[in-house]
């Protein structure tokens, strides 16, 4: 899980052009939107693309978005859960 969370941080920084951030600046449980990392609605779409591009996971239900993209940890948990289902 730790490696996945670190990978996610690196991918988010690259995909979302957060050039002023380093992986260690992003807390595992820090909120991704508004406060915390301060992502916006366009970033949310980029996160959906990122999950598809890197992990082959499509967010099945848009209403799950706020739960899945709450933090790096919730994203990692969602990815792990769906990869386990696929296996």
């Amino acid at each position, binding site marked *: 899980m730790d490696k996945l969370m670190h990978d996610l941080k690196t991918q988010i920084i690259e995909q*979302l*052009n*957060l050039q*002023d951030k380093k992986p260690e600046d992003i807390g595992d449980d820090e909120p991704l939107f508004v406060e915390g990392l301060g992502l916006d609605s*366009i970033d949310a*779409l*980029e996160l959906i*693309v990122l999950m*598809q*591009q890197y992990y082959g996971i499509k967010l099945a239900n848009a209403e799950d978005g706020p739960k899945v993209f709450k933090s790096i940890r919730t994203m990692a948990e969602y990815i792990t859960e769906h990869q386990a289902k696929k296996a």
Partner: protein
Amino acid sequence: MDSTYLKITASCVIADHKVCCNGEVVYKGDKTKSVPDFLTDVYTFLDPTYPKFYKMDLLAKLGWLGSEFLLNDHFDKAAYREEDTGIVLTNANSSLDTDQRYFQTVSEYPSPSLFVYTLPNIVIGEICIRNKFRGENAFFVFEQFNPLFLEQYVGGLIRNKVIRNCICGWTEVLGNSYKSALYLVQESASGIDFRAGQMEKIYGF
């Protein structure tokens, strides 16, 4: 009010990896660097602490940087209401630079963050968000720099009291080619006459 009462109170030209404000070169970049790297260097030089800059496309970065130089020390924001400041920009290739980049992503994973910049007037939005400007704005596409149009259109907006001051000019990026020439136009006792010929001179610094 005749347009002779309108003055260019500040100007900023960004071209050839240099930034020229009010006739003086204030930043010289490394000419071997790419356009994106040069713009990032200019941002670092300005040091405005505005992380959203990194998310902008090149057209927005270029126009946004020009507006930062233009407004620094030359604009008394407190003297105006949010709706008093307009922005009128022009260029030759609209948002084609980003349109092409976006098109390259379409076959695999279309990029939402590129898609939102596939209109030229988004650069105006970025400047407005940064400065809380709410005045009239427009983006026009011409084959080449058209200062006479700017003189007439912006002059008309101010004469008709639609706005009281305006950031106007040219902001163009396509591949390795770029140029921005922005003017701050206000009613003022001092400054350069807001005339096409004066804009042309500044544009060709």
